[in-house]
């Protein structure tokens, strides 16, 4: 991009109406970024907390799972920050998983017909929202005890 071009450029995002196919493409990227950063750092923290012993794991549990009785407001704040982050990571996991599966099918040359393509884009969104809600409900009732 060294030199300035004065030639006309093709129209970009701003002139198109949003469609599920466009949304799933950018969501694949965004969720991939969330998983690559927040997701992997949390996984590494979890692994090192297991390896670090009971006290080390208690710190991970306090902040990520639940601060418990007698927690200060700062601890509760950090706890809720990580809970929301965990929700974002879980949604990203399922979204990236389902749209990734869609990509593997597209890579084989299938699913490019307009209606089929649109249907599977919507289905991938639906599946990831459903799976995230399911996990959130189970975690909220069994682990956190809300």
């Amino acid at each position, binding site marked *: *991009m*060294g*030199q300035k*071009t004065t030639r006309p450029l093709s129209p970009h995002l701003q002139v198109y109406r949003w469609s599920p196919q466009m949304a799933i493409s950018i969501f694949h*990227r965004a969720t*991939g*970024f969330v*998983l*690559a950063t927040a997701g*992997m*750092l949390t*996984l*590494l923290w979890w*692994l*090192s*907390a*297991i*390896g*670090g*012993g*009971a006290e*080390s*794991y*208690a710190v991970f549990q306090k902040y990520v799972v639940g601060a418990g009785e007698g927690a200060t407001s700062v601890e509760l704040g950090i706890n809720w920050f990580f809970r929301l982050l965990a929700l974002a990571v879980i949604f990203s*996991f399922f979204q990236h*998983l389902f749209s*990734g*599966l869609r*990509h*593997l099918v597209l*890579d084989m040359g299938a699913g490019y017909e307009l209606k089929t393509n649109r249907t599977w884009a919507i289905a991938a969104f639906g599946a990831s929202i459903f799976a995230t809600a399911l996990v959130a409900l189970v975690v909220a009732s069994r682990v956190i005890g809300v």
Partner: protein
Amino acid sequence: MGSGTNIGKVRGLGSAKHGGTHWINQRTTAVGNLLLTTWLVASLLLLPNFDQATLALWLAKPLVAVPMILMLVSIFWHVRLGLQVLIEDYVHDDALKFGAMTLLNFYVVGGAVFGIFTVAKLAFTGAPA
């Protein structure tokens, strides 16, 4: 090969000859991630509880430590390939792009080695008291 416009400079040179490898590795690691994260979720759900002692004994088993290490390699490799595309698409300044790619390489190698070492230490020396 001309010396004028950007397109003129590269016209006739063909591809960089590395795109195919990147593409196929991204898919291979995607399938690896699919299999190994499915294993992780299934294996975790089979545990009686998620106490540190239970998790440490679980993680130290060869048939848990090995797929965990494979998962770390597969995911961090996938992260390297995926974020590379993000950087190439959005960072246009040569110096910034070089810096971002360097940081990415440090992140994925550092993260993978940290994770693998943690699992290996637990598997080889046992859970700490």
